């Protein structure tokens, strides 16, 4: 390992640690906050449910940009970024769907509602899962990256639908706290923003680790070709 790579690792681990420390501190602070008057303690799940959604939607946007850049430049670094960020985004979106379902179970009395927000979020998860499955199905690297980039761009069509569905249609899912005319007390807002920052940081660290694995995978493929050619 060269010195630059070692420093990169230290910075990466440091950022990951900072994210975990912020999240642990926030969990402690959130536990001591008063309960929301109508929903009670379960409302505090918003401190996790929304930040993971932010990460997932940001990941989808980054995947879109990386996919477009791959199609323009044919540089495999963009393909690596697209697959890395999609995989990480999928994990965060899964966390968002699960926390949302539990929240719904407590407040609505049902685990799931086929309304526009929930359905479009589930479709979003399925589309990006299909992206990863598509990559496994195509052997040739350039063809795989091209098909995947096109699929990623197509999948992104669902992202604005997920975001704006609560504005466009009447949904079981409520309006967002801020965007729907509501507000947080200042101390809640500060913790919530810290949680978003920590989740974003965590997502970024996971993406960089995953990009490095894609680089290692390319090195492995190249070594395999060399061994077979000998």
């Amino acid at each position, binding site marked *: 390992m060269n010195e630059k790579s070692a420093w990169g690792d230290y910075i990466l681990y440091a950022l990951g640690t900072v994210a975990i420390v912020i999240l642990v501190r926030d*969990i402690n602070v959130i536990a001591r906050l*008063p*309960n*929301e*008057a*109508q*929903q*009670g*303690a*379960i*409302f*505090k*799940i918003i401190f*996790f449910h929304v930040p*993971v959604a932010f990460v997932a939607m940001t990941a989808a946007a980054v995947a879109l940009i990386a996919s477009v850049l791959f199609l323009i430049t044919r540089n495999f670094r963009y393909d690596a970024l697209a697959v890395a960020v999609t995989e*990480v985004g999928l*994990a*965060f979106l*899964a*966390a968002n769907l*699960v*926390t949302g379902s*539990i*929240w719904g*179970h*407590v407040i609505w009395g049902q685990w799931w509602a086929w309304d526009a927000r929930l359905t479009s979020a589930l479709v979003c998860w399925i589309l990006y899962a299909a992206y990863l499955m598509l990559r496994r199905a195509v052997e040739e690297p350039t063809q795989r990256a091209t098909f995947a980039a096109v699929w990623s761009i197509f999948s992104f069509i669902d992202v604005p639908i997920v975001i704006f569905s609560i504005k466009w249609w009447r949904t079981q899912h409520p309006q967002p*706290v801020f965007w729907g005319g*509501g*507000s*947080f*007390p200042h101390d*809640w807002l500060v913790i919530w923003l810290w949680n978003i920052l920590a989740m974003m940081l*965590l997502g970024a660290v*996971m993406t960089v*680790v*995953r990009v*490095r*694995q894609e680089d*290692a*995978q390319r*090195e*492995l493929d190249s*070594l*395999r070709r*060399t*061994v077979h050619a*000998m």
Partner: protein
Amino acid sequence: MHLQYIPMLFAQMTTPDDIAREAARLQRNYEWLSVGLWIAWVILVIYVLFMVSRGRKLKREIASLKVMLEDRQK
């Protein structure tokens, strides 16, 4: 959104049954909040473990192929 402290909520209750119901509801809310956060964290931790295992496997395979290449070049 309106925030109130639990004692204020209890203060508005009229009968012991109301208070018992509200206490049960709060307890259930706490339990589900814990379940939700645990499951969400478990999903992320499983993904990180999956990533770590894949990273180790890649390193192992690269090292063994490099050894194989060196052997063939001798």
